[in-house]
């Protein structure tokens, strides 16, 4: 637009009566915002540009929680590093950890409470005040409680910040319908299998630095990066440990393996049973340990007697000689062998049994409490402070799997599949409110269309998050949370030095903010504040365990006879002497009565999984070192490193189909679901012909994630027929079969 006058002439004329009156009228109205500035004389910074180091906190770019320091310049976080005091990750953090800086300043982050004045799935956002947002959440949740009872609320939590609100909804409000992706779409079967075999949590408690042999089943350390865990693994290899990797794909671990077993997907349990049967028959197991600590060993040996090498070789599509080689190698190095329990284990819906087999193999080799074996470091004690359990009984009574007498060995919470089915069908009772807190159920739970159906039928959906992930599009009220770099947390990271063979030390590392949580630029809050404010409005003020996160944290720390103030003085990590973790033994339930009584196999067994239909290959997924699934996709640095998830395809297959590396392709599953986006093909000798692999967590659909949206293929959208693990109720997600589509043409995968 061409202006008729210049600024100069305007300003000269601005003494005009009308304008002067208007200006002074506006000025006296006093409707101007408070100034964003204060006066402060300038002092030139020194040569380091006034860089300061703030110690404390731990990383949350993944769940490993490496301890950090932040480098700040003028209030801006410029770099993250490992805390030099750390006896866990030390000064190292991984690529994702480094990129935390970019999460803090991500332009797409949620800033203010928002109300959806459009539709679920196609939201129109209006910024509202915290009071208005919380009032609405409280009254709508209370409405559901009034009509449907507390069990009418479903919750999908994830991460450190979600624990406190989760306890509130379970124990004070009284809903059993809490489903954590970390259990039901990740490690639930592992945790429950080890608890019901060795009587302890599995974690990743294998003493790899001091092992003589390491067995990884599907675990791909190197692509799957957790700093101290990688340190343990590499130290073990450096010390000469033999590495056995069972994987249909030439993973980064397979590339370092002494024996790589290119197994047919879904058959790992058969492989493990054959090894154990072979060792038992040969007498090459730790008889003393089994005699002393084994339960039901006779029943066990009988039940697996059929599993000979040829039987397994046929099922697993690997040579019998190789299975024998693995068994002999393990026996030769026992008991100093690390049988890795894995972490993400929700693969085929028969995963509890595979994990039981791993725990039994550990016991059979006597690889418990010894150098290189299954050993649990003895961490420091802390207090257990949370909401009082006043409504737990009510919750228990309405637990879906208990009512249906299913999934008797479920991890805490309600199996997701049951919860979603109940919510959609209103049977056995209606579930009409949904809370997602730090979890993106659209991408964590298989069967997206059902998840969306569930969200659409709710009376109320509330979402709390840091980033506008897919689930946020379905919120009625969307609340912005402070990131891990700006807040205190209820959860305290603690443990022991990374190498159990080093000087025994324990550490306590609370999360403290590296940058201020206050800013005129946003109104984000931490989860303790949000939950407390909600609780006040829902009539639970009297049960609030602490007014602020800091206060709560201090109570937790008091259990370890330490205070937040003291740890701050100690640069964010408190160290104290530890004790020798070796020499412990655990009972091994080779046969488990409780399982048998509940109608499940008392001895680990192998259930075959459906084969790919003709023309299809099985879709398996995994990790890449620079991403933690959905949560890191929008990060500019990480996105630049790996914007898409390559589709691994066997080279001979590719040749037959006329495909080459770099081709852009869609995937089409057995139900005709076509991936909404394309990705690039990686043609390789390093994958079986019956298997296609890609990295999980790509292809977010929310355009509000401006860097990540629609990049790569969302494997979860293709998992339309998840399996459900009978014992635990966890999902099995390597159950999809796919074909490749190029330029609109669907190509059959040759056998």
């Amino acid at each position, binding site marked *: *637009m061409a*202006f*008729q*006058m*210049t*600024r100069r002439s*305007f*300003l000269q*004329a*601005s*003494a*005009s009566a*009308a*304008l*002067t009156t*208007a*200006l002074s*009228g*506006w000025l*006296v*109205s006093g*409707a*101007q*915002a408070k100034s*964003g*500035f*204060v*006066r*402060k004389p*300038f002092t030139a910074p020194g040569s380091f540009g006034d860089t300061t180091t703030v110690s404390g906190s731990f990383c949350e770019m993944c769940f490993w929680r490496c301890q950090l320091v932040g480098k700040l310049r*003028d*209030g*801006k976080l410029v770099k993250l590093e490992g805390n030099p005091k750390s006896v866990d990750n030390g000064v190292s953090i991984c690529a994702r950890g480094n990129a935390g800086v*970019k999460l803090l*300043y991500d*332009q*797409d982050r949620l*800033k*203010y409470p*928002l109300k959806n004045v459009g539709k679920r799935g*196609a*939201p*129109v*956002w*209006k*910024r509202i005040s915290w009071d208005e947002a919380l009032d609405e959440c409280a009254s709508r949740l209370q409405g559901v409680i009034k009509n449907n009872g507390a069990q009418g609320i479903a919750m999908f939590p994830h991460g450190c910040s979600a624990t406190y609100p989760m306890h509130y909804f379970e124990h004070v409000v009284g809903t059993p319908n809490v489903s954590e992706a970390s259990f039901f779409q990740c490690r639930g079967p592992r945790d429950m299998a080890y608890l019901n075999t060795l009587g302890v949590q599995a974690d990743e408690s294998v003493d790899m630095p001091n092992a003589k042999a390491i067995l990884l089943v599907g675990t791909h350390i190197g692509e799957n990066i957790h700093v101290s865990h990688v340190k343990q693994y590499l130290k073990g290899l450096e010390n000469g440990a033999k590495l056995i990797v069972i994987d249909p794909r030439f993973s980064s671990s397979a590339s370092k393996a002494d024996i790589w077993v290119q197994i047919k997907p879904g058959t790992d349990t058969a492989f493990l049973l054959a090894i154990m049967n072979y060792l038992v028959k040969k007498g090459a197991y730790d008889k003393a340990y089994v005699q002393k600590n084994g339960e039901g060993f006779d029943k066990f040996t009988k039940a697996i007697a059929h599993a000979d090498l040829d039987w397994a070789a046929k099922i697993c599509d690997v040579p019998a000689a190789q299975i024998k080689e693995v068994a002999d190698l393990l026996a030769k190095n026992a008991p100093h062998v690390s049988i890795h329990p894995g972490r993400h284990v929700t693969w085929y819906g028969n995963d509890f049994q595979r994990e039981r087999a791993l725990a039994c193999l550990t016991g059979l080799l006597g690889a418990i409490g010894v150098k290189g074996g299954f050993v649990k470091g003895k961490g420091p004690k802390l207090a257990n402070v949370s909401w009082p359990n006043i409504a737990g009984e009510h919750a228990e009574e309405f637990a879906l799997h208990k009512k249906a007498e299913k999934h008797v060995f479920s991890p805490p919470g309600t199996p997701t599949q049951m919860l979603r089915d109940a919510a959609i069908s209103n049977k056995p009772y209606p579930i009409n409110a949904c809370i997602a807190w730090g979890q993106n159920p659209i991408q964590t739970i298989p069967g997206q269309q059902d998840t969306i159906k569930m969200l659409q039928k709710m009376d109320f959906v509330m979402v709390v998050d840091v980033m*506008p992930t897919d689930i946020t599009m379905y919120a009625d009220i969307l609340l912005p949370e402070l990131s891990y770099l700006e807040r205190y947390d209820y959860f305290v990271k603690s443990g022991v030095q990374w190498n159990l063979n080093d000087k025994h030390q324990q550490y306590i590392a609370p999360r403290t903010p590296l940058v*201020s949580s*206050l*800013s*005129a*630029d946003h109104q984000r809050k931490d989860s303790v504040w949000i939950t407390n404010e909600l609780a006040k409005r829902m009539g639970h003020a009297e049960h609030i365990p602490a007014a602020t996160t800091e206060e709560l944290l201090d109570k937790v720390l008091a259990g370890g006879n330490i205070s937040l103030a003291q740890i701050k003085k100690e640069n964010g990590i408190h160290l104290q002497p530890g004790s020798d973790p070796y020499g412990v033994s655990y009972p091994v339930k080779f046969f488990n009565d409780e399982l048998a009584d509940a109608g499940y196999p008392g001895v680990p067994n192998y259930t075959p999984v459906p084969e790919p239909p003709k023309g299809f290959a099985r879709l398996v997924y995994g990790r890449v070192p620079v991403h933690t699934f959905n949560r890191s996709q929008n990060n*500019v640095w990480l996105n630049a490193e790996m914007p898409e998830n390559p589709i691994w395809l066997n080279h001979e297959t590719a040749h037959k189909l006329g495909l080459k590396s770099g081709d852009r392709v869609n995937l089409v599953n057995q139900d005709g679901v076509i991936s909404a986006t394309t990705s690039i093909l990686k043609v390789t000798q390093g994958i079986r012909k019956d298997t296609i692999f890609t990295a999980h967590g790509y292809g977010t659909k*929310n*355009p*509000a*994630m*401006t*860097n990540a*949206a629609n990049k790569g293929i969302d494997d979860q959208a293709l998992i339309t027929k998840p399996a459900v693990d009978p014992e635990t109720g966890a999902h099995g997600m390597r159950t999809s079969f796919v074909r490749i589509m190029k330029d609109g043409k669907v190509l059959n995968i040759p056998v």
Partner: protein
Amino acid sequence: MNNSKSNNHADFYGFLAQSFRYPEQAWLGEPYFDLLDSIVQNLDLDNDTLGLRQTYCANQEGLEILQIEYTRLFINATPSVIAPPYSSVYLDQEGNLYGPSAVWVRRFYQQNGFELAGDADIPDHLALELEFIALLIDEHQEEVAEQFLNEHFRRWFPLFRARVLSGSTNKFYSTLLTLVDFFTREEP
């Protein structure tokens, strides 16, 4: 140039800064629209400010429309937010907040004796930059203001403006962007 006149000038920038804050009843009253009308008339713009007053002044429904539009344009939106009002998004390659240009802005504030009031505030928000110009002019530091405009503001504002205009037909913001352009553009 006398004192009062100079303060006058500063107030126009203060007015523009205010205009890019979140729309609230408290500041979108008659006095605000009186001044907006008056400026637009003096500039001989053909923008329909009467319509704006009718739609947004003391009108709960209209205010809500403006709030939704502000949220969509500048805060969070689905599909994506149209135009984050920060220079870093336009000047720094990474398209993140608090990039190198924001660091430059903060240092420029400091060198001229101003610090942000909150310790974690993002320095390069449009409203803050306009308020800074107002403060400089109020102190008769026109040359510094010109330097700020020249070395920084004019490099990103047109990009920002273009993004708003291509993503929105809202008359209130298009009028105000015209005014910001008028008050900050380079003049011979």
